[in-house]
């Protein structure tokens, strides 16, 4: 082999607008090795892969800095097609298969083996016959390579999900000249035994000399399969290690890291929680697309701020949405000793719960209506506030007064209470959402991703408001956030959710390793937490 590395991505920097998402990242892959790429959400893994595949999103936003050397040559990859022709393949997280086609057809799609006949000789290649037997034998070979015993002529539509993943891989292997394969969280949808089988297949492929980039957050799998590990955090390269030099715990710690200080500092030293249980959640299943929960058990203490963290798509957002009746849910949720009817938003709201949704523009606001109408809406509908007794007309004066109070209290920057919320900035919209929840005078507040997409000043104000509500009005708050730093600065306890279950409940001061392990689905031993 002439080159030590099949792929070198040297000093890659990518800037979106004024926001650097990759800062001087270098990634080097040897032929035939399994190279794990680790990092939290937003660490820059996907952007790095987009650069590698020459995705349009990179080119249309001004390209990137740095160089890509593939197979010893400096290359410019213009498009995913280009990448494919150079021998870089991708196994997608969502299956790109056509259900009504057979396994063979899917594997050979757009690369069919054809046989000419007189008409096609005249009218062109598009009219050639398919050479089905050649295609089938190719497919068979590929399927055998991934250890699949299924018949190559079965239709894809009836197959179990695990099988589809393997067909994807078989398709990539079948391409001739494949030198590098990228697996983007391939085990996320697989059962344990399937995952194990997949890892074996990966090793087999690697043994044939094809390099593999393995993106995952399951540290066990990394330790099992990978040869080399590169860790990204906040767009920067943390380190590249050989597997033999490290442990799961070290990886977890490196992934989380003590980043910059939290946006606010809250003194939690004098906290004495009364200890009563405000809400107890048992075996909660929530069917929210992309955020499925599979049996959450969690107790929320009265008067605390409980954080719920975890990687995207693991089910942390499903918990508040399921309890508040926005998505189909089952399980037992008791609030102050009373069982909550799941799926009945009105009853849950009446019981004294409120929620600030993560989907501000979609669920949280009526964008074309005024600030004041947004603030009082739920209270008017659920509690019957702000209504005059005559014909149940809305009480414009009371609404205006309340809205003005809220605007002052939460410092909502607007021209008047009648300004449509759609014209406000993200931070001020979030404050309107908070105001709407507060107007319900709740005893218990869910706040889902309260700081997503708002600027740092507004972030601070929103978090401070939550702490103030908790301290002064004794409101129990459950805050769901993807930003661990934020949770650690505000919350008393932090529950980490992975794969639809609560893995561990940690304290803010627990070690990065403990958090890192929990986020990849493993519980740290008691002694390691500190």
């Amino acid at each position, binding site marked *: 082999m002439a080159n030590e590395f099949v792929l070198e991505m040297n000093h890659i920097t990518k800037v979106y607008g004024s926001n650097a998402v990759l800062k001087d990242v270098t990634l080097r892959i040897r032929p035939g090795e399994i190279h794990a790429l680790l990092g939290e959400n937003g660490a820059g893994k996907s952007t790095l892969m987009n650069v590698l595949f020459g995705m349009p999103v990179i080119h249309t936003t001004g390209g990137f800095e740095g160089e890509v050397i593939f197979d010893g040559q400096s290359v410019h990859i213009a498009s995913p097609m280009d990448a494919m022709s150079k021998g870089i393949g991708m196994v997608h997280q969502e299956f790109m298969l056509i259900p009504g086609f057979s396994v063979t057809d899917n594997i050979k799609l757009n690369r069919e083996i054809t046989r000419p006949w007189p008409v096609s000789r005249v009218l062109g290649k598009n009219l050639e016959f398919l050479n089905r037997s050649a295609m089938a034998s190719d497919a068979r070979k590929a399927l055998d390579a991934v250890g699949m015993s299924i018949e190559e002529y079965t239709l894809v539509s009836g197959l179990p999900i695990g099988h589809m993943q393997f067909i994807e891989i078989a398709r990539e292997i079948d391409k001739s000249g494949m030198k590098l394969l990228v697996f983007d969280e391939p085990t996320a949808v697989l059962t344990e035994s399937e995952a194990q089988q997949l890892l074996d297949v990966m090793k087999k492929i690697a043994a044939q000399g094809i390099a593999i980039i393995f993106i995952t957050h399951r540290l066990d799998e990394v330790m099992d399969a990978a040869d080399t590990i590169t860790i990204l955090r906040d767009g920067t390269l943390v380190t590249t290690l050989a597997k033999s030099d490290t442990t799961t715990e070290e990886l977890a710690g490196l992934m989380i890291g003590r980043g910059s200080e939290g946006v606010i500092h809250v003194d939690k030293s004098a906290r004495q929680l009364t200890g009563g249980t405000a809400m107890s959640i048992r075996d909660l299943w929530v069917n929210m697309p992309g955020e499925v929960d599979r049996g959450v058990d969690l107790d929320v203490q009265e008067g605390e701020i409980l954080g719920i963290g975890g990687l995207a798509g693991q089910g942390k957002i499903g918990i508040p949405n399921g309890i508040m009746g*926005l998505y189909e849910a089952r399980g037992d949720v008791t609030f102050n000793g009373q069982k909550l009817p799941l799926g009945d938003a009105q*009853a849950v709201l*009446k019981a004294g719960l409120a929620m600030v949704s993560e989907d501000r523009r979609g*669920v949280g*606001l*009526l964008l074309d*209506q005024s600030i004041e109408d947004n603030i009082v809406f739920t209270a008017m*509908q659920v509690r019957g506030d702000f209504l005059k007794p005559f*014909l149940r*007309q809305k009480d414009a004066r009371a609404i205006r007064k309340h809205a003005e109070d809220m605007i002052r209290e939460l410092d909502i920057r607007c021209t008047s209470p009648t300004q449509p919320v759609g014209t406000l900035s993200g931070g001020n919209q979030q404050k309107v959402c908070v105001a709407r929840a507060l107007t319900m005078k709740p005893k218990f507040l869910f706040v889902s991703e309260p700081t997503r997409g708002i600027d740092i000043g507004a972030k601070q104000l929103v978090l401070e408001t939550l702490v103030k509500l908790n301290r002064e009005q004794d409101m129990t708050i459950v805050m769901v956030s993807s930003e661990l730093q934020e949770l650690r600065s505000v919350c008393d306890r932090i529950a980490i959710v992975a794969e639809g279950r609560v893995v561990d409940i940690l304290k803010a001061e627990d070690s990065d390793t403990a958090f890192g392990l929990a986020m990849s689905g493993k519980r740290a031993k008691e002694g390691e937490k500190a």
Partner: protein
Amino acid sequence: MSEQVVEKTAKKRGSRFITSIVLFALAGVMLIASISGYVLRGSASTRANLDRMRTSAVLHAATEGLVDSIAQTARSAKLKELRADKNFRKRGLDEVNSICDAAMEEARAEAEKLYNNPVVEDEAALESAIETMESVLATSGQLENREKAAYAEIYVQLVDNISNWRETAAEGMDDAAIIEALAKTAPAIKDAGNAHLQPGFVRLAKDMAAAQLAREEAEQQGQLISMMTGAIADWTEYSGLEGDALWEKLAAELPDLNGNERFKDALLETAAKHIAAAENGETLPEEAATDEGAETVGETLADYSYFIPTDELAKERQDNEAAFEALNVQLVRIIPDLGELTGNLQDSLRVSLEKVLWPGSLDFSTLYDTYMARGGDAALTGGASKTLKLASLAEALLLGSIALMLLGLVLFFWETLTRRFGVPRTIIALFFIYLCLLAELYNISVRMMLGNVLERMTMYGVLVLAMMPGIQCGIGLNMGMTIGCISGLLGIVLSLQFNMTGFAALLFACLSGAAFSLPLGWAYSKLLNRMKGNEMTISTYVGFSFVSLMCIGWMMLPFNNPKIIWLLSGRGLRVTHSLLGSFAHLLDKFLSFKVFGINVPTGGLLFLGVCCFIMWLFSRSRTGIAMTAAGSNPRFAEASGINVNHMRTVGTVLSTMIAAVGIVIYSQAFGYAQLYTAPRQLGFIAASAILIGGATVSKARVSHVLIGVFLFEGVLVFGQQIANSVVAGGGLSEVMRIMISNGIILYALTQSGGARRD
């Protein structure tokens, strides 16, 4: 990138600014020209020329008939000549026509040369005669106008509202009794000032009764014939019979013939025809009865042949006569041929002279245009034609200047206006104002048309309001409101079935229509709740299907009042039902009054106002607010514990019920209830009206309804009149209506619907 956008908008704004300045400058120039034109009209030389032009106009009017008759005579002479030729039959019709027309034009040109600029020897005498005639006409004309207006009002009231003249003027009633009966409909007939008109109206009533009798007899005869031909299958049995013998055998078979001997001749004639055919082994088809259901629909125009002038007017008319004689003497002196006129031509000479000299009928620009068209340039003093031209254009220049100024203003404030009102509303409003200006230019009465617009507002207002809850609850434009319309129509025909009249009938139709629409709207909303995201398609389809379904329904429903069913088959409802005896124009006439010559349909406007007020109250209530939220963001509403499907049902049912009331109001304003396919287009009209008003497919307010219905109907009424004056032929206005209404719907869908779903 954003800098580019900013730069681009700035550039656009700059070019708009410059364009508006240019427009203002042009408008200013035109305004100055117009003012100078008006000033010139006052100058002495213009006045002198004006007199000359008037004289010329009179002479032209006088010779117009003469020239025409000469031309016609020449044409018929030519035709006669061609007929005499033995080759006549070989020529085609077109060829004959073109030869004759050529001859006519030639004769006309010659006659015009002869008469157009005759030598006037005694100008002063002619002018004084013209002036006398003019001043006499000024007094008598006004009087005549006034009296005829009073007559016309009563006439229209009577003809519009009396459906059974044979009852009003039954045989054996004396004149006083007939007047009493007429006064029930038109109380003004008994006013002291109208006593002289009474004999005329008595004559009218008798004529109408006679006409009605004739019509009914014809109808009955037609039905008997149809019944007879339908009932008898085998005519050979009657072979050989004739006259009384045939009649007796027929009457034995068909007892209905007894007592209808007055139709004997016609029946026997038909029977003979069928017998003859049967003897030849043929079978003639059943004779169809004439359809009396198809009544003419439109505005009633007064027929002045029943008009009787007051003594005062009669005396004025005599003065008129004298003045005309004097003028005629002068005219004959100038053009001796006028003295030879007889009969019709003499009469038409007088009519055309009166038309020219009628007060206010000759304005400056018309005078000037006709004068110049006849090549009268040379006779004007001192090369005055340029100043006169300017003076004649004063009005057009003024209107043009206003139009340009408005356009400039709109461009200048474009951003503010479009942000405040939206692009379509701004453009339509500007278009409407331009139509008003054009109407002024074409001398079409803006006032009369505004009255017309008001009337149509009451007609369509409630229907447009029905769109509002549909939009608010999130189903978008409720094209399926035809379901409500059909329920309302069902209510109307029920009220007719039970022979109800007046407010009771109106109330009954509204309530029963709303009651029918309740379950229908509920079922329809269940359907829509299963098709979220495709409501527009579904509602249009459901609306059309329901109309078709009810086309069968109207035939099958067991109505049996002979007034509303097909007489022939004895079942099935007719297409058009006159509401004259029932509640036609009931609301519109309630408390109605005239202001500045505009007829204000108070009752209808009040009803629309009350409906809008109730809708406004509803949209501020807890349920209304919840419904609007469910429509604009279902997920938001759900998060607040609102049952979105329930709210959509509330909105859909409400929309359907308002549509049911709306069609009743529409029918009362129209005067007729139309069944079968008639309600199909109503959804589109209502949708485009509310969209013009500023609503989108996801947001609507009461103000959108009112502004929309005014602008939509305004553009239609004015557009129709103006289109008809600019381009002869009637079809244009309908084309315009379709273009405007469908164009607006398309625009609204691309604007709000398209952007929303991204």
